[in-house]
């Protein structure tokens, strides 16, 4: 790791100021579960690290006006264990409990994951499928507009993910096929039957442009929320990622299989 300078703000305003002061060379760090390994590999060299773990405004889970809102600084372990999340979005709780390993879940946060937008991260698939909103210190962005590409988001400079919120789906399923080495998703699918009856299908780990919505599956499942509705569908290998762990063609198959299983497991 290259030498860096650590900073510990206690408010969003202070964090934004520190970030601004760093002239684009600073990095926000929430749990650090992706950033620190990246820095250890000398693939990132921020001159300053702005630790968001002590910003109280980023914490907390609430259910108000029919929407579940989760602070950006909430850890995967907190989301997994939280009674409100379990009540309104049990599938998201289940998803959070399968991210990384227990030690990673104790540090990693939903805000960090969303802002980093790793093409194999789990939350983006869920947020896309549920039609969630990403809250930042300056605005609210719907998930479809937020996740713009691999490791790319709509975040502007000096913008911090403060929370995500969504209307709990009627039913949802999450199925993850893990890479045998990294244990990240090779195909992770979140299926949500939304409150308005439409269906969202978010896919992570498989697409060559990052997390995506499988629109054909959404419309098929919208008229028949059953795995058999996908029988006639297929994904193009041209849109999939291929590597030593799985070719694009294999991933295209996986996405379909995993989607069916997510539908089969879907629950309130």
């Amino acid at each position, binding site marked *: 790791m290259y030498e860096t300078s650590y900073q510990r703000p206690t408010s969003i305003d202070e964090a934004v100021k520190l970030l601004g002061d760093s002239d684009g060379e600073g990095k926000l760090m929430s749990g650090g579960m992706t950033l620190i390994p990246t820095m250890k590999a000398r693939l990132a060299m921020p001159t300053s690290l702005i630790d968001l773990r002590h910003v109280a405004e980023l914490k907390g889970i609430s259910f108000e006006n029919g929407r579940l809102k989760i602070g950006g600084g909430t850890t995967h372990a907190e989301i997994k264990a939280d009674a409100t999340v379990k009540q309104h979005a049990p599938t998201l709780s289940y998803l959070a409990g399968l991210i990384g*390993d227990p030690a990673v879940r104790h540090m990693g946060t939903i805000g960090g994951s969303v802002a980093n937008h790793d093409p194999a991260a789990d939350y983006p698939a869920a947020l896309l499928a549920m039609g969630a909103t990403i809250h930042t210190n300056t605005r609210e962005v719907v998930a479809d507009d937020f996740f713009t590409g691999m490791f790319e988001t709509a975040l502007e400079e000096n913008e911090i993910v403060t929370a995500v919120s969504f209307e709990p789906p009627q039913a949802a399923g999450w199925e993850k096929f893990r890479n045998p080495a990294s244990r990240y998703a090779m195909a992770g699918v979140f299926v949500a039957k939304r409150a308005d009856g439409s269906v969202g299908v978010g896919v992570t780990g498989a697409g060559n442009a990052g997390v995506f919505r499988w629109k054909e599956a959404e419309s098929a499942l919208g008229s028949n929320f059953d795995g058999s509705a996908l029988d006639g569908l297929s994904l193009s290998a041209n849109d999939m990622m291929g590597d030593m762990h799985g070719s694009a063609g294999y991933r295209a198959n996986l996405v379909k299989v995993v989607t069916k299983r997510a539908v089969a497991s879907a629950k309130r």
Partner: protein
Amino acid sequence: MSQVSMTVNGRKVSGECEDRTLLVHFLRDNLHLTGTHVGCDTSQCGACVVHLDGKAIKSCTMLAVQASGSDVTTIEGIANGQDLNPVQTAFKEHHGLQCGFCTPGMIMTITDMINRHGSDLDEETVREELDGNICRCTGYHNIVKAALDAASKMGTPQQVAAE
């Protein structure tokens, strides 16, 4: 360079280190607590697991300055004097270790697991939650047995406290 202060195994400690210093190196090099190990560069092997404010974390994936102000427990701090804790005892009784290198991380991870699951801990959960701890010697068979035995002795049922 930053001044870092924390409580480690119940003792207040402080020291100066570069901001890039990982918690594991601060523990090993500054505090000479060499029971916490480094086995990979990618936060996957779990040889470095310690407890930060009561929860298992990977000390290779946290800066020492990040942990400043926190309460850290390492493998050196979990026995009660000469009395081993139940997870340590179970590792010995079930031959849950061979070379011993992954063992501190395994014990810290499993202690955390039992803190969360209590005696309800089952084999499937143990195997799933050992995702971030790699052992090359044991084939995990005896580690799983040790975890389940320790859970039955240590945990109370339905101990699903907030994580």
